[in-house]
């Protein structure tokens, strides 16, 4: 565990955090792709029922961290435990069972383009439940209504706008009533109005269901709105973990630079070069 991580996760309010159940535990996770270190000893606890927003710049390692929590990547060094299951050693069957309690909304929506929206949302129910097909059709309509979509069951994903595709993807993620919901860059590529609509949707989900939500984003306004706690990650290391106010008041200059959206020296130098100064 890094110094900065220890200062934020262990020293801050130990009694409050000790009394809560960590549904996801990441311990000393190290990920390398060839010579490049993407995650360097990351440790993080995510508690049941909270909304954790993982913040960080492009290439900081936040999506890699999310993929390890989702079980899409197996940890080579360190450990990731979800609902008590160590993902590094879990069998294929255990991992499959665990994934039924998770929902994932992907950055690109990841809808199956060869299937209608209705079939996309019905797929997890058809595969993992014993419900009658007529009941599944009703549930599909309910799930789509929950995310604000109506009369789109028979359309193909390519016939939807970017925001509608993300909502449909969320409806599919909610199909099995997951305990943990992961969002990868929910507002990426969307205009501010539609992005705000998605934030609203996440807030409504939070209040309606006892669900643990993990969101990866670099959109500050969205992050501050939906988060119970936030984790700031930079160059594969956790800089700070805490509530929204704690992150706002964090003295680390890199955290403050990100929050204030200040350019770094390298980009200032390149803009000087472009301006011919």
């Amino acid at each position, binding site marked *: 565990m890094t110094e900065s991580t220890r200062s934020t996760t262990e020293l801050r309010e130990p009694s409050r955090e000790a009394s809560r159940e960590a549904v996801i535990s990441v311990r000393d996770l190290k990920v390398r792709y060839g010579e490049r270190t993407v995650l360097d000893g990351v440790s993080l606890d995510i508690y049941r029922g909270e909304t954790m927003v993982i913040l960080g710049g492009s290439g900081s390692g936040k999506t890699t961290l999310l*993929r390890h929590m*989702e*079980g*899409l990547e197996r940890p080579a060094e360190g450990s990731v435990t979800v609902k008590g299951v160590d993902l590094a050693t879990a069998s*294929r069957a255990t991992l*499959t*069972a665990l*994934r*039924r309690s*998770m*929902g*994932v909304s*992907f*950055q*690109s929506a*990841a*809808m*199956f*383009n060869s299937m209608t929206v209705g079939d996309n949302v019905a*797929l*997890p129910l*058809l*595969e*993992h439940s014993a419900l009658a*097909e007529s009941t599944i059709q009703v549930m599909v309509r309910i799930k789509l209504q929950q995310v604000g979509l109506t009369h789109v069951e028979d359309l193909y994903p390519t016939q939807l706008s970017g925001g509608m595709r993300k909502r449909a993807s969320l409806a*599919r*993620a909610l199909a099995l009533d997951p305990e943990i919901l992961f969002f990868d860059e929910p507002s990426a590529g969307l205009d501010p109005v539609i992005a705000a609509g998605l934030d609203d949707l996440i807030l409504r989900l939070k209040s309606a269901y006892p669900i643990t939500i993990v969101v990866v984003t670099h959109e500050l306004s969205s992050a501050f709105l939906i988060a119970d706690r936030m984790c700031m990650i930079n160059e594969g290391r956790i800089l700070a973990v805490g509530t929204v106010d704690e992150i706002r008041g964090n003295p680390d200059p890199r955290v403050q630079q990100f929050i204030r959206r200040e350019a770094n020296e390298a980009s200032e130098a390149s803009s000087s070069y472009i301006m011919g100064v």
Partner: protein
Amino acid sequence: MTLLESVGRFSIRQAEYIGRLAIQFWYCLRFSVRASPFKGRGLRWKRTLRQMGDIGVRSLPVLCLVSGATGMIMALQAGAELRRFGAMEAIVTMVGTTMTRELGPLMAAIVVIGRSGSAISAEVATMAVTEELDALRAMALDPIDFVLVPKYLAMLVMLPCLTVMSVFSGILAGGVFAYFTLDLTLLAYLSRTAEILLMRDIVSGLVKAVIFGSIIVHVSCLEGFTVSGGPVGVGHSTTSAVVKSIFLVVLADLLCTTFFYFFWR
């Protein structure tokens, strides 16, 4: 890098590739039982039927043309030589046995590689690039089970069927040649072909079709599953799937022919 290092790295890469194919094949066999029409809701069975249409029915017209042309070319080339020895009637044997044992399955495989193998690879690679395969895993569905198995089962059924059609087209084209050069009616030509063909010829052709079909699906899907580099990678994986499939099919053909030559005379 020394020559020895280059050879070593190349060998390790090839061994790794064969290993991946073997693991994928093993999981595919394990999941194949789930595609039974009598299990669950029969979702995989329905997907298999759809794949049968894509792989089989739509490949049929072009395959019949290619195999018919091949049969005709073979008859013309053989006729040019056999005429000098007054052994024109050997064309019936030559076209019949060569199409059944060798060229029928090979032509069917090559047409399917070009038409369906490339499409399979592009489809799977696009699914990988657009995170659809990750979405399947996140929904507790194995991409091998959901994507590969229906294609594999469809290919196991359809490539032998296409091979039969390929053989028939080639023989029929040879019959047209015989009609004009040997004064042999089509019916007489076909009945003579049926007389000279042995069960061994037919079985060896169908066994080859099953092996070729397995190679095509597994190579195409593996190239798709392991794609990297976004949309450019999709193009590379498609090209790679076609090249590797053709190479491995020809290699498998050589091994099968050698086996049948020595062990089933």
